[in-house]
C-alpha cells in the first residue's frame, strides 16, 4: 500500500503560464486534474474546461423553501391555528407577512448557497494526499501548481512527467496517496 501514488504535481512560474498550461492539460484530454493557486484566476474555469458552477441550484432550492415556509407559517399561526383579530386586518394576506416571507427567503437561500459551495467542493474533507507534498503547502504563499491524479485514465508516470515539462512545469514530483 505504501507505494500507492495519488498523482503528479508541477509548478508554474506565473499566472499566465498556469493559465496556458491549464488550457493545454484540458486539450490533452485529462479528466482528473486541477489547478492550485491562493487566489481565484479570472477565466480559469473555462481554461480548465469546467462547466458553470451548480451552486445556484442550491440557492434557488433554499430560497424557495424559505418563501414557502414564511408564507405557510404566517398563514398557519395567524389565520388557521389561532386566528388573531388585530385592527380589523384580514387574518391572512400576502401583503403584511411580506417582510417575514422575504427575510426567510434570503436566510434559507444563503444557507443553501454556503451548503451548496461545500457540497460542490466536497468539503469538509478531513484528509487529502496533496497535503503530504511540502511544495503543495507553498501554494498558500505564491506557488502555482497543476496536479494530475493517478486515477486519470491517461496517467503514466513517465509520459505525464514529460507532458508537464513540455507545458512549462517545473519542480515536478509524484505525491504518495
Amino acid at each position: 500500500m505504501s507505494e500507492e501514488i495519488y498523482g503528479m504535481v508541477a509548478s508554474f512560474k506565473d499566472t499566465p503560464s498556469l493559465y496556458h498550461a491549464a488550457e493545454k492539460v484540458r486539450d490533452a484530454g485529462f479528466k482528473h486534474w486541477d489547478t492550485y493557486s491562493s487566489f481565484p484566476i479570472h477565466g480559469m474555469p473555462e481554461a480548465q474546461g469546467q462547466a458553470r458552477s451548480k451552486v445556484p441550484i442550491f440557492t434557488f432550492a433554499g430560497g424557495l423553501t424559505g418563501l414557502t415556509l414564511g408564507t405557510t407559517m404566517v398563514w398557519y399561526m395567524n389565520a388557521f391555528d389561532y386566528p388573531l383579530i388585530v385592527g380589523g386586518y384580514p387574518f391572512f394576506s400576502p401583503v403584511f407577512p411580506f417582510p417575514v416571507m422575504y427575510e426567510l427567503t434570503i436566510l434559507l437561500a444563503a444557507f443553501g448557497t454556503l451548503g451548496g459551495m461545500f457540497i460542490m467542493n466536497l468539503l469538509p474533507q478531513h484528509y487529502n494526499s496533496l497535503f503530504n507534498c511540502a511544495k503543495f503547502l507553498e501554494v498558500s504563499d505564491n506557488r502555482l501548481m497543476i496536479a494530475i491524479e493517478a486515477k486519470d485514465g491517461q496517467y503514466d508516470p513517465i509520459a505525464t512527467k514529460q507532458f508537464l515539462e513540455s507545458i512549462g512545469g517545473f519542480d515536478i514530483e509524484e505525491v504518495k496517496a
Partner: protein
Amino acid sequence: MSSDTTNCSIDSAQQALLDKVAPATLKEQELVTNNRDFSWVTNKICKIVESNTPNWWWVCMTVALLTASFTLMGLIWLVSTGVGVWGLANPINWGWAIVNFVFWIGIGHAGTLISAILCLLKQGWRTSINRAAEAMTIFAVVCAGIFPLFHVGRVWFAWWLFPLPNANLIWPQFRSPLEWDVFAVSTYGTVSVLFWYMGMIPDLGILRDRAVQRLTAGIYEETSKLRASMARIADVFRKYFYGVLAMGWRNAGNHWRNYEMAYLLLAGLSTPLVLSVHTIVSFDFAVAVLPGWHTTIFPPYFVAGAIFSGFGMVLTLMLPLRALYGLHDLITQRHIDNMCKICLGTGSIVGYAYIMEFFIAWYGANPYESFAFINRAFGQYSWAYYIMFSCNVFTPQLFWFKSVRENASLVWIMSILINVGMWFERFVITVTSLANDFLPSSWGYYSPTIVDVFTFAGTFGLFSTLFLMFLRFLPLMPIGEIKFVMPQADPHGHHEDGKESH
C-alpha cells in the same frame, strides 16, 4: 497573438489623427502600491495573527473589557430591578434603548454594503477593507440586539418573539413591524456571519498551511527555550483551530469556481437584505401614526443614514489599524478617498432628507405634523437637533476637498463626529415625537438615567472587545481577493520575463 492586434484596424489617416490628438494615458492608482508581490501580501496579513501580541493590544483589551463591564452592570441592575431604572416615562416609552438599537444596526450596514453591493459593482478597492467591515457588521448587530432584547422587560420571555410554541398557545402577531424586525435583524445577523465565514475559508486555509510548514521545519528562533516551545504550542493550536475552520480547503481551481459563484450569490442576496433591514427598522417608526414618524421618506432616509454612519465607523476603525500595522500599501489614499466620498454622498442624502421632511411638514398642511417639526428645531430638544444637523450635514461637506481627505487625523475626527451626529439623529426622531404628543398635559422632558448611560457606553467596550479578538485570531483582510486585484494575477497580463501574452 501579439500586442499590436488593436492597431490593425487603424488606417494611416486615422493614425495621423490619433497622433495629433495625442490621447492621454490615464493611469488608475494601483490598489496595492509599491509593486508588492504575492508573498509580501500573504506575510503582511498572516503576521498580524502570527506575531506576538503587541502591547497596545493588551492595553486596548483591558480598557475595552472594563468598559464592557458597564453594560453587564447596567443589565444586571435592570433585570434585578425592572425597566423602571431606565429613564422611560409615559408617553416616552421608547428612549435610549431604541436609539441605541437603531444606531448600532445602522453602523453594521457599511460592512454589508462593502462586501455585497461593492462586489456586485465590481469595485476592486473593497478587497482590503471588506473583512474588517464585515466583522464590524456582526459585532454591531450583537450590540444592537442587546437593547430590544432587554427592552421587552422580562428578558426570560424574549423567546416569545420567535414563532415557537409556548404554554399560552399564542403565536407572534405578524402584522406588527416589531415582529418584522425580529426576522429582519436575526436574518441579517445570520447571513452576515455566513458571508463573513465563507469569505474567510481560503485565508484560514493559508494560516493552517503556514502553521504546518513551521511545525515541519521545526525552526523556532526565539530568545529562550521556553519561548520557542510556546511558539511551537501556538502553532499546534493554529494547525487544529484553523484546520477545522478551513474545512479542508486546498485552493483548487474547482474550489475557487464554486466559491466565486457562491460569493457572488451571497452578495446578490445580501444586497436586498441590507436595504430591507433598515427599511424594516424604519417601519418601526413609519407604520406608527405619530407626527414626525409617519412619513414615506423614512426607508430610503434610514438606509442612507445607516450607510453614512457605517462608513464613519469603518474609517474610525481602519485609520488607526492602518497606522498600527503599517498597512499603507493595502489601504491606500485611494481607499480613504473613496470612503470619504461615500460619506459625502450619503451625508448629503441625509441632509436632503432633513430638509425635505421640513418641506413636507409645511406642504402637507397638517398642523400636528408641522408642530412636530417646528418643535424639533426650536423646541426643548433643539440642542440635539443642531448637533445632529451640524455633524451630519456640514461635516461631510468638508470631504469635497482633497486636502481634507488626505489628512488622516482630520478624517478620523470627522468620522467620529459623523457617528455622534447619527446617534443624535435617532435620538431626535425617537424622543421629540414622543415627548410632545397629542395631549399637552402629558408632555415632559425625557432624560436618561445613569443605568441608560452605563448600558450604552458599555456596548462600545463590548464592540471593541469583539473587534480586538477578531484582529488577534482571524485574518484581517481577504488575502486571495487582494491578490486577485493585483496585476500579477491577470492571466492575460505580463509574463514575469517581460514577454507579452495575448
